[in-house]
């Protein structure tokens, strides 16, 4: 929209500016991806007596906060952890919950290496499908599919509680990605990984949207998080750039605050990133109507 039109409109304070998108999120995502890849690699090097100095020799299970979530039942009833899970998983679970109380599923949008991996594959999909990318599944159908991850969450928690074993490992594409060389990875997990990679060419973050049980847990925090993505309707020019930028297809432009359980707090929709009007879509505490 031309600058003059904005200044003469009913929102005289709105100003557009050329976007220089912050690189912080990409840097944090890349850092955690590399860190997890190196920790996974260190497991092999450790066995060969060549472990990388100063780098954790923990297993991936020990640094996955979802391990803490699936261990809650056993810890509460027996006082022990599920197989392969240790105190570190529990601590990371609490850290993730504290961050989620503040910012929602920031772990999904900023830290999770598997989310990052899907985004990277998605960049290729964007080149192939251009504007159609991430818009290929009809909304009427898609909105119901988004709840599958809660069914998966219940199944995983039930199966883990019943067996006291880390059942999710057998289908976990995240574990398969970082351990594909290991005989601990099941064929099913490799297939799920392959399907996720393929779907990432059409849909942004398909695993996060439809299947991730940990994303389902953290998504609940969007309902009551302290800092929300908020839209100032008095300065909004209804260009819907925020909607188009959202990897999770949330309609940011139709309300005053995003409460959608799928938000991953990536902040792509904000005035800092995509919204052309300064101070219109922001991460803030201010009250407002909800999306």
């Amino acid at each position, binding site marked *: 929209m031309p600058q003059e039109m904005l200044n003469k409109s009913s929102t005289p304070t709105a100003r557009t500016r050329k976007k220089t998108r912050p690189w912080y*999120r990409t840097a944090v995502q890349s850092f955690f991806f590399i860190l997890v890849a190196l920790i996974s690699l260190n497991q092999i090097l450790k066995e060969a007596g060549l472990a990388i100095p100063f780098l954790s020799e923990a297993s991936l299970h020990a640094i996955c906060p979802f391990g803490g979530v699936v261990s809650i039942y056993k810890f509460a009833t*027996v*006082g022990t952890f599920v197989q392969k899970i*240790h*105190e*570190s998983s529990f601590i990371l679970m609490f850290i993730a919950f*504290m961050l989620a109380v503040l910012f929602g599923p920031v772990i999904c949008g900023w830290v999770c290496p598997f989310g990052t991996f899907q985004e990277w594959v998605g960049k290729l999909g964007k080149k192939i499908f251009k504007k159609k990318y991430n818009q290929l599944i009809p909304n009427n159908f898609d909105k119901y599919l988004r709840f599958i991850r809660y069914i998966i969450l219940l199944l995983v928690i039930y199966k883990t509680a019943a067996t006291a074993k880390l059942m999710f490992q057998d289908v976990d594409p995240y574990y398969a990605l970082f351990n594909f060389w290991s005989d601990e990875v099941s064929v099913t997990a490799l297939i799920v990984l392959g399907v996720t990679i393929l779907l990432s060419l059409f849909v942004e973050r398909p695993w996060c949207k439809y299947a991730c049980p940990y994303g389902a847990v953290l998504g609940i925090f969007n309902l009551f998080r302290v800092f929300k993505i908020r839209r100032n309707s008095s300065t909004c020019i209804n260009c819907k750039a925020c909607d188009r930028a959202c990897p999770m297809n949330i309609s940011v432009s139709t309300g005053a605050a995003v409460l959608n359980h799928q938000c991953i707090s990536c902040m792509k929709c904000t005035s800092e990133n995509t919204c052309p009007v300064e101070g219109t879509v*922001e991460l803030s505490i201010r009250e407002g109507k909800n999306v």
Partner: protein
Amino acid sequence: MKLKSIHVAVITLVFIFGGIALTSLLGMWKTTNDKIPAKYKDGEFAGQYNPADIRGSYTFNDISNAFEIPIEDLGKAFGVEDPAKYASFQCKELESMYALLAAEGKEVGTGSVRYFVALYKGLPIEVEEDTYLPKTAVEILKAKAKLTEEQIKSIEKYSVALPEVSAAFSVSASSPENATADRIIKGSTTFKDLMDWGVKKEAIEKIINDKIPDPGKTIKDYSSAKGLEFSTLKEPLQKLVDTVKK
């Protein structure tokens, strides 16, 4: 109050690494097991070590220290031949040592050690259906543990003879002419593997009472998809494989 992405980045990193640093200082951050089992939190046995928390990485020495069970009893119970290896023997080694038994649905592994320790010390434990004890372990328990009639009946029912086990293990491990003994159905075994081992497709389909969906599919995954226990298909299919071997 408004936050920019730089704030979120910094707060996220501070929370994660600050949390790890703080819990490390407090001695709470553990990424491996310290080889000390958890204790019962309440009830009659509150404060005692819980055998259910014995992990595969525990050595017989760790268990002996925690539960005050003579290491010789553990070594003899589970058929470790060399007494010099008792202390360093890890529970998870039993699973490969007795892999042939597992193929028959009689698992002697970490679960068996938990069971043995619980009975030895008179502690409560839940045991999976396919968990077995070696006969040597049963004899030690009968001699040294206070068992009820019901427990004695149960452990006798779920016992396997170690001499047979050892013989089978040594044959499969060392005899090249019996290399086919390696053809054991595991979690990663696919239908194609069975056919490669010489099992006829029709014979497999007769057992699974269905067409083979995809030869590359693992039998374990197929069982899960059909809502069956893995052992339900594994056992008859293993018999089929064994028939082909002969």
